[in-house]
């Protein structure tokens, strides 16, 4: 479904060329829970942004259903993200002047009864009684749950979660990951984290070190696959 072929992301830092990630060969299958594990600064988030179309690889390709994302215009890539993908970011980004319910509604595009779905999503995530509250009236864990509900809107084909538990305590972090796993339906879940305990139940885990899918972690844990750096 989503495939990276020799994808690399190069940026310039004070005239110096730095690879956020390079020569990535990776495939995300339908319904798969893929964990991307790596230390801070290893390029996990950059890889996630490339896979989700938020960043365009400077070399190589990212294909979605065989279509190179780089060949799509900004508008088509945006539409792809809104209609087929869901996102949970490291920080619970919500619009401060919208209620929890309204923030969740933003997660899906125009047609269909978004409101009913948003209400259902929030209720299933235990926020049925707080859906009309503004973000500042919610706790950090609740805000991240709202973000999860937003990501689940429209039953996306893939959910990209970038360290969704980083700003939460351990218990809340696990709760959020469990919700993502359980509520995603048939959609794939690609989750980036530096905490291996958050990837319990992942179908596959790859590691990233210095921008490369590395073999070092293979030995560290069964089921963790090396990449092709």
């Amino acid at each position: 479904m989503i495939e990276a072929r020799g994808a690399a992301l190069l940026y310039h830092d004070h005239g110096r060329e730095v690879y956020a990630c390079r020569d990535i060969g990776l495939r995300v299958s339908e319904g798969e829970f893929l964990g991307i594990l790596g230390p801070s600064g290893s390029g996990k988030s950059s890889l996630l942004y490339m896979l989700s179309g938020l960043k365009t690889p400077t070399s190589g390709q990212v294909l979605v259903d065989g279509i190179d994302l780089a060949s799509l215009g900004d508008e088509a890539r945006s539409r792809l993200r809104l209609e087929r993908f869901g996102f949970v970011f490291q920080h619970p980004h919500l619009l401060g002047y919208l209620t929890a319910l309204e923030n969740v509604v933003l997660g899906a595009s125009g047609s269909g009864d978004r409101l009913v779905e948003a209400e259902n999503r929030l209720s299933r995530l235990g926020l049925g009684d707080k859906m009309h509250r503004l973000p500042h009236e919610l706790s950090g864990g609740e805000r991240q749950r709202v973000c999860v509900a937003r990501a689940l809107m429209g039953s996306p084909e893939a959910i990209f979660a970038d360290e969704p538990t980083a700003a939460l305590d351990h218990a809340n972090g696990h709760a959020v990951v469990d919700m993502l796993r359980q509520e995603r339906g048939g959609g794939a879940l690609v989750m980036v984290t530096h905490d291996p305990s958050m990837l319990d139940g992942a179908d596959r885990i790859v590691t990233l070190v210095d921008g490369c899918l590395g073999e070092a972690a293979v030995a560290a844990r069964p089921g963790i696959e090396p990449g092709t750096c």
Partner: protein
Amino acid sequence: MATRESRRRLATSKQTRSLARPLVASTFLFRNAGKTIPLVAVIVLAVMLISGIVAMIDSIPLSIRTIYRYSQQMVGITPRGDPAQTPIIRDRIEKEAPVPLERVMVCRATGAQVRSIVGKWPFVVLGLAREDMTYYLDRMGSRGINGRLPETGKAEALISEPVARNLGLRKGSLLLGPVQDGAYSPEEVRVVGIADTDEWLMFTPIEYQRAHHFPPIDVLLVFAENLPDQAKLDNWAVKAFKGERAQVFVYQELERDTQDMFKILYKILNVVIATLVLVITLMMAMLMNIYQSQRLPEYGLLQALGYTRRQLLSRAFGETLVVVVGGWVLGLLVAYSLLLVVRAQLMTPQAFALDPLDRMAFIYTIPIPVAILAAGALTVWSRFRRFDPVSVVERRLV
């Protein structure tokens, strides 16, 4: 009961609509009143200021046109250098006038003054024969007289209602007199009647002016039979007596002189208004830039979620449009209300002219929304040009 239920349903459906479309402009603008109100208030004040200034300046030529509007009804002709020319001129007019004439009046004229917001202006006090007084009042649309007509040969005057208001005169008040600055007469001429008409007029008996006023020149007032023909008659008189021993007074000349007189003033006004619009636009652009900067996390998040640049641009532009057009319309309404109050409290009691619905004042405010909208659009566009949503979701920008 049914009404309450239908109201409840309507409210629920409205709420549902707004919940289902949280990105509509009104949601942000109403829920961020602390930001919206200052923006709207600046526009309202700017529109109020500009339309107020223009309307007040426009009130000067409007006053000129209002005060001297009576001259639209006639052409005035005085002999030059030789008082004996009057019957000759009259004879020529009666023979050669290109339109049917209703009346040619022989009268005298002396001067008084009326007040305006920029000082005192001269105004003619006609000396009319008794039989011409009634005709003149009819022609000026008089609906009646509070008092009576001046008696033949007596030191008495009739004025119209706006003149009475302007000079604070009532029946028995002194209009002309030996110690009246700018309204001299050797005897005290008192008001005996106030005509109920919107036109400005003052007259005394012709015999009184012939006996007491200088110069001893009979003036001709020529009235076309049909008012629409008056302009044609005026134009003819101006051409026919050019270079002759006669001076012609027509309304069009007054209009032309007024326009010439105010041309420079309006040029200065254009510069002032342009500067004001520039200052306001810069201020608004700065405010909008600050507000847009504060909203970058919002734009970044929405773009990351999959809202297109075009959607976000049109949303930001829509919000700007609502603020600018709302502020402009509100500003016009407030300006109109204030001008109504100014007119009622300050202008009308002294018969000063002011048009709260001044078209020019309205037109002068148009650059405000246009310039602010352009500045707002430019600000938003420049913000979006090289905007990377990842910088927001990674919290590098916030």
